[in-house]
């Protein structure tokens, strides 16, 4: 690295410019990573935190809108519960509503209907667990508390007027399709789902309808279970795609990230290509003096690696700082693992780009060091 370090120092303006470009890309990478994790949290954290491993939806349902369209008979729960490899199965309902708290806070909620005693009923951070009653006791996401909902508040659902009482709050963010999750007792959920106003007679079939069977059991044979219960299963991961906007958001961000990686590798490759071409005469001289190709390649790659690690380091630090500033205003969450993976990938692809460029060293003929030989 004798030559590499001295050239970095000597041509610091040139390398500095290149480093600045890589650092800016790294900043963008960190922000995108934060946004991506933030959007995933906003879109599906309510699902991610469910103890279920798969959902059995109505057979033939559109996967992209399974949670809003699927209707399954409660009898399927029993069928699933009896299957081999299934630890537990419980009814699950999902519907999006607009509501208003007694304090005047307008809030959109994703109502997760679960049976109070089932394995889906969440443990609370504050207050009490889910309970039937009039009005029904519900448990809300921490993010709803941040939006102004308080323990003991009564939330009235728009249009139908059903009243829900906040009896408990959850410790973490539970959101679904960018909307706060509220766990409601299954019976209440079924009444809301058919649009029954308080006091209305509720059709008997309403109490037999749920969105899906939430199945817990990693070793369960989903296909056989579907055949027996007349359902269509999606694993928990697959069901994320049924969250509104989730697939479009994540695939857009992934596309941008892939492009950024490619741009980064190409820019670094182009820079070192020009640099290597400029160094031709110097390389010819050093090779004529007896430097091996391996020595020159190692030296040039070490130079690229130093430049990349320094600039990605600076960029990531700046990106994390910037991310903490905007954290409150946008769906944004930095995960050390995701940031580390993005940094490593930037460095790795940069080195790959540089390698393609510095391989030109092998094509330099030391004979060209002698003037007039060509």
């Amino acid at each position, binding site marked *: 690295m004798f030559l590499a370090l*001295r050239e970095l120092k000597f041509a610091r303006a040139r390398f500095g410019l290149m480093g600045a470009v890589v650092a800016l890309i790294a900043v963008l990478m960190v922000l995108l990573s934060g946004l991506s994790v933030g959007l995933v949290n906003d879109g599906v954290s309510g699902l991610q935190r469910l103890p279920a491993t798969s959902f059995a939806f109505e057979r033939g349902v559109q996967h992209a809108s399974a949670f809003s369209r699927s209707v399954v008979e409660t009898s399927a729960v029993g069928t699933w519960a009896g299957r081999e490899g299934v630890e537990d199965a419980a009814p699950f309902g999902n519907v999006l509503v607009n509501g208003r708290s007694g304090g005047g806070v307008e809030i959109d909620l994703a109502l997760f209907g679960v049976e109070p005693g089932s394995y889906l009923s969440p443990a609370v951070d504050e207050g009490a667990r889910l309970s039937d009653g009039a009005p029904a006791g519900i448990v809300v996401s921490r993010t709803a508390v941040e939006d102004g909902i308080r323990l003991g508040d009564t939330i009235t659902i728009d249009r139908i007027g059903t009243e829900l009482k906040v009896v408990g709050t959850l410790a973490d963010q539970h959101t679904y399709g960018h909307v706060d999750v509220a766990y409601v007792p299954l019976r209440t959920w079924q009444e809301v789902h058919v649009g029954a106003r308080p006091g209305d007679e509720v059709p008997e079939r309403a109490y037999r309808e749920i969105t899906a069977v939430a199945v817990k059991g990693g070793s369960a044979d989903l296909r056989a279970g579907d055949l027996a219960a007349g359902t269509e299963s999606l694993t928990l991961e697959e069901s994320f795609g049924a969250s509104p906007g989730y697939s479009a958001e994540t695939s857009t961000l992934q596309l941008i990230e892939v492009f950024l990686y490619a741009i980064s590798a190409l820019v670094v490759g182009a820079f070192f290509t020009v640099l290597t071409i400029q160094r031709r005469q110097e390389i010819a001289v050093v090779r*004529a003096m*007896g430097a091996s190709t391996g*020595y020159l390649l190692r030296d040039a790659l070490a130079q690229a690696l130093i430049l990349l690690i320094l600039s990605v380091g600076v960029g990531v630090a700046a990106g994390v700082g910037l991310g903490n500033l905007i954290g409150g205003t946008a769906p944004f969450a930095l995960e050390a693992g995701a940031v580390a993976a993005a940094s490593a990938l930037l460095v790795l692809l940069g080195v790959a780009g540089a390698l393609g460029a510095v391989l030109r060293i092998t094509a330099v003929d030391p004979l060209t060091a*002698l003037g007039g030989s060509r």
Partner: protein
Amino acid sequence: MKPAETVPGARSEKNTSGLVMRDVNLQIGDGEDVINALSEVSLIVEPGEFAAIVGPSGAGKSSLLAVAGGLTTPTSGTVMVAGRDMTVAGRRERTTLRREAVGFVFQSGNLIPALTAEDQLRLPVKFGGKAGRDPLELLAEVGLAEKAKRRPHQLSGGERQRVGIARALVTGPSLLLVDEPTAALDRQRSHEIVALLARETREHGVAAIMVTHDHDVLGHCDTVHEMVDGRLTRVE
């Protein structure tokens, strides 16, 4: 100084410490465009001897340097430097031979822009050359003791060439190959540089070959050869 020998076979294999070239042919190109860059060239340069090669452009002077320094493998003939065969086929082996046995002085120094004068001399050791001489001592010897920390752009043309000479000698080579050292220098500097080369050659017992267009400086050389159309003849 003993005179150089250009008659093949006259001094035979016992001269093993300098440069021995015998019946060297070098053909460049292929098919119908073959050029005989070197034709039956034989040349012996002993340690401490400073040989000059003159001749018109394109006569094969640089080809002679390339073959003597192991940059090019001749089509036929033998090239020995300090008893080692420079005509081996492997690129890696020739690289090692160059590193260990040959010092090059290029036109206008051809220094590395990023390195100080001292670092220019330290580089050959860094990539595996043997540490023959102390860089600072050698710089002082070529008159640059005060300028060891300067980079090429902070040195004059003559000073750059002095650094180039010191760099070629730092590993203690057996053969010094000098390519048009005065191309970019004025008359007085040319004489100083060639005189320095002659002195270093004698003091360190190196076999040296200088290719030049500059007939003014030939007085510093022990022998002069002329190259015309790939053929080498002794002039004086």
